[in-house]
Structure formats: structure tokens, C-alpha cells
């Protein structure tokens, strides 16, 4: 296994644990200040300036998002979901500028208020070197159920 592949996998596994454990601030710390975060709605390849997203925005948007979830009064996550997710099919490539493009599939088993649900999708990342480790400059999450009626998906994705 290449060093790059190993580093990216370890990074994505760590991110998965932070999301699974609802560690909002620690998860946010993985993103660069100039990051973009996007969960498209209805179809992949939509234009987020003209079409609605499930979530789209910059670091400030994520801060608001995380602050709300961490407030204890975000009732759709209070009590929070219990989750474990499998991250797999990781493909990583570095470009000439040193940015890493990575894709990974995920499956989340989630239980909240005694109901178990499955969520799955594919995440696209652009990762950069940061403080001797990696950081997320871009993350896009394409849910398998992108166009389906969404039940409570207010946990971290």
C-alpha cells in the first residue's frame, strides 16, 4: 500500500470516528478555513447557486451548523444518534499542486429512539497538507437516497 493511500485512509477513518461519536468541534477542526462543504439534493452535479442543496456552504456555515448541534437543544439530535459507519472503497490521488483528491463510500448504521436506519453514500474530498497532517478543503457527500424523502439525517455526514 502506498504511503499516500495509507495516510488518506487513516485520516478518513479518524474523521468517521469523530462523526460517529458526535464530536462536533473536533470534526470541524479537520476543515481548512477556506473549505467548502456540500451535500447535493435531488441529483448529483446540480449547480448549488441555482438549485437547492441538503447543505452547502463555507467554514462559517459549518461553524453555525456545529454550534447548533452542540447546543444540547437541537432536539432532532437530543438525544443524539448512536452510529457506526464503515468507510471503504477509498481511492486517493495527489495532483501536481500537492492537493489530494479522494473518494470513499460509506455506510452508516444509525439508531435513535429505538429505530435503526441505514444511510449510505459516496464522499468526494480534496485534502491538503496542514500542520504535518491532512485537512479537508472540500467535501461533497452524494447520498444514495439523494432524491428520496429524508428521515432525520441531522447527524454529521
Amino acid at each position: 500500500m502506498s504511503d499516500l493511500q495509507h495516510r488518506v485512509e487513516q485520516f478518513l477513518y479518524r474523521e468517521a470516528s469523530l462523526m460517529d461519536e458526535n464530536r462536533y468541534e473536533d470534526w470541524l477542526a479537520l476543515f481548512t478555513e477556506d473549505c467548502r462543504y456540500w451535500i447535493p439534493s435531488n441529483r448529483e452535479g446540480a449547480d448549488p447557486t441555482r438549485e437547492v442543496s441538503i447543505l452547502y456552504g463555507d467554514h462559517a456555515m459549518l461553524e453555525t451548523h456545529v454550534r447548533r448541534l452542540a447546543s444540547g437543544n437541537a432536539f432532532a439530535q437530543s438525544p443524539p444518534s448512536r452510529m457506526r459507519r464503515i468507510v471503504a472503497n477509498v481511492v486517493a490521488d495527489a495532483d501536481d499542486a500537492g492537493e489530494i483528491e479522494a473518494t470513499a463510500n460509506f455506510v452508516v448504521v444509525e439508531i435513535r429512539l429505538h429505530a435503526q436506519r441505514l444511510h449510505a453514500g459516496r464522499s468526494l474530498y480534496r485534502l491538503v497538507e496542514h500542520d504535518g497532517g491532512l485537512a479537508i478543503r472540500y467535501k461533497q457527500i452524494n447520498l444514495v437516497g439523494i432524491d428520496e424523502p429524508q428521515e432525520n439525517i441531522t447527524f454529521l455526514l
Partner: protein
Amino acid sequence: MMRIEATTLTSYDHLVRPDAVHGDVYTDPGIFREELGRIFSRCWVYIGHESEIPRPGDFKRSTLGTRPVILCRDRDHRVQVLFNRCRHRAALVCLPDSGNAEGFRCDYHGWHYRLSGELAGVPYAEAYEHLDMGSLGLGKPPRVSSYRGFVFASCAADGASLEEELGHPCMEQIDLFCDLSPEGRIRLQAGVSKLAYDGNWKLQMENSIDGYHPNFTHQSFFAGMRGPGGARVDMFDGNSTALCRALGNGHTLLDYRRYNASHAHARIEALQASSWGRRYYQDLVAAHGEQRAETVLSAGGTHMNVFPNLVVLGQQVRTIRPIRHDRTEVLLAPALLEGVPDEINTQRLRAYEAFYSPQGGGIHDDIEMFSRVTEGLRCDYDPWLLFQRGRHREQEDEDGTIVGQVTDEVSQRAMWRRWKALMETS
């Protein structure tokens, strides 16, 4: 032995009081079946918006109650609402949620229909002795009508016209929503947030115009925006100058106009901060005049329920889709404005998503409460849900609407009055 037909003419006094509602109205499958007949087969029901089907052949699937329908535009540019059921053996004739088509073909035995609904062809037709093609077009609700592009259908052949049903105060709110566009037109072409929950459809109707809950259900949203200490907003407190209104026929409004009046100039000034904002404001004034421009910007859209299944709220057009007595889908379509700088529409999308998208800061906290209500309803110790808030102080306004303070339950009482009246009429 003589068979006695059950009469279905019922009084609903035991379920709906002027200030309280019995829990069975949310949980009884028999009541749900009656609603499909007495409300969704009789009222003007919102189907979709003309901007979703701009060209001939454009279609989208929708529902009329639980009936699958197709909203489409035929070759003559007429808007059609067609029942999505083959006249032969009942299979759907249209499967995709939306698209553009020459017509509709049933994949089961190949019967095909024109966009206007007529039966265009039947394979191996010689096997039929008499097949009256002219009477075997796709079914249509007897009445279809639209107001400012909002298409409604009614399964009742007679009754109030759409405009009579909506009434002036309701149409005035739709005008405010559309006139945020200098062209006076909205466009529902920006996708749809789709949500679903295990609970009754009326929980979403009640909640959409509930001015009492935001400072509690949504305190995390306000805290997320403003940081700790910002958990409540004065717009929804017990002394707010915002109002709620019963507009007639069960249509209801959270009316922020008086509250927003003091903020109108701040909104106009915020638009002056960018070239696109200035252009938008100038175009709005040029199109509607300065006074109307100020009125629509101050109102900032509307926040209205149109009974039984439409909500026009903030930037969005919301459809409430009953599936079963204990299952509901909610479709939220952000409305883009025609004839505005792109930045205005992008800003509308982001503002909408912050609260209403499935990962946004608000809508799922509402749905969480519907789940908690649905589970709580299993307890019938005292089966009544209370809606008397502000009843002693509600008043009839000059325009005939009934008005109360924003946290009062004027709107829910009005909704339940209409519901009861419809359910009691055979």
C-alpha cells in the same frame, strides 16, 4: 335480509371542540379514509406550479389526496391534471417524477395517451368488439384552476371557484410572495427538499402556522445563529407585535407585516450594500412603484397555510402529502424569483437551506416534535389537545379576518373549524 347501508353523516362534535381536538383525529385510520373523501376529494387541492412545466410535454408527478396524478402541459400549452392510472388495468402510465414526454404509455399492455389525456392507441385493437376510445382517456379531476401559477384541482364538479375558495386576503398573500419578483413571477425549478415522518399530515399543517413554538422547538437554531444567549427571538415572544390571522376557509397566516414595518428600511439599506442588491431594488421600484416595492420587501414573502395541503412560507412552496393516517411526506420547493440578479436567488437558496433543508437547523426539530406527539397520543388518559390560547382576545379585523397575537392559536382553531365543517358535510 335487508342490508342496512351505514350512513356516514356524522357529527364531529365529539372530536373537535371550539378550543380542543380529540387525539383520534390524528390516529384513527377510519377518520383518515373519511378525510380523503370529504376533504381531498372535494376541496381545491394544490397540485403544483405552472413554472414546473414551462414547455409542451413537460410533466411532473403529484398527488390529489393519495391519488397519483400527472401535472403536464399539452401541445396547445394548456395545463392538464391527469390521473396516473391506465384505463385498461390500472398501472401507472407515468413513472418518472418529472421530465418531458410526447405522451404517456402504459408499459403493461402498451395503451398510450396524449398529453391532453386522450387515449391515442391500443395494441391489437381488432380484438375488441366495441372499444369507445373517446371515453377511455386518462381520468381528470372535473375542475382545474390556477392563481398566479399555483395549480389546484378539485374532484367536485360544482362548488366555489378557486378564487372564491382562496378569498381576497389569501390571494393578497400569494401576490406578496410573487411580487418579490419585478416580473411578478416565481419559478419552481430549483429542486425539492423531501421529508417524511411517521405521523399524521395535520401535525405539519398545525405546525406550519404555529407562532408559539419557535422560541422553544427552534431555540438551537437561534442559538446557532447568534451564539449562546440568542436562543429566543422577540418576534415570537408573548409581547411581539407580530400577529396570526384566520383568513377564511381554514387558510391561515402568521402576519409579520406590523413587526417588520420597523425593519423595512434596514432591509432596503442592506440591498444598497451591493451592486446586485441596488439593481434588484431599482428593478422592483421600476416594476411595482416605490410604495409597493417597500410593501413587498417589508413583508419579505408570506407565511401562510392554504387549506388543506399548501404552505407558502418564506422562500418556499411546501406541499403536505398525506400517505396514511400515520405517514406523511412534506415537499419543500424553494421558489426562485424571475427577473432578478442571480445573487438574489442564490441568497434565497442559502437562507432557505439554513432552516428548511434536511440538514438545516429547523425542519427536523419540528418533525421530531411530530414524532413525540404521535408517541404521546398513545396515552388516552386525557385525549384532548388544547387550542384555546388567546381565544378570549381574538378579534375580527376590518377585512373580515380573525386576528390574534402571533403566539395565539387563532390559526389552528380556524384550521380545525374548516376541517370539522368539511367532515360533517356529506
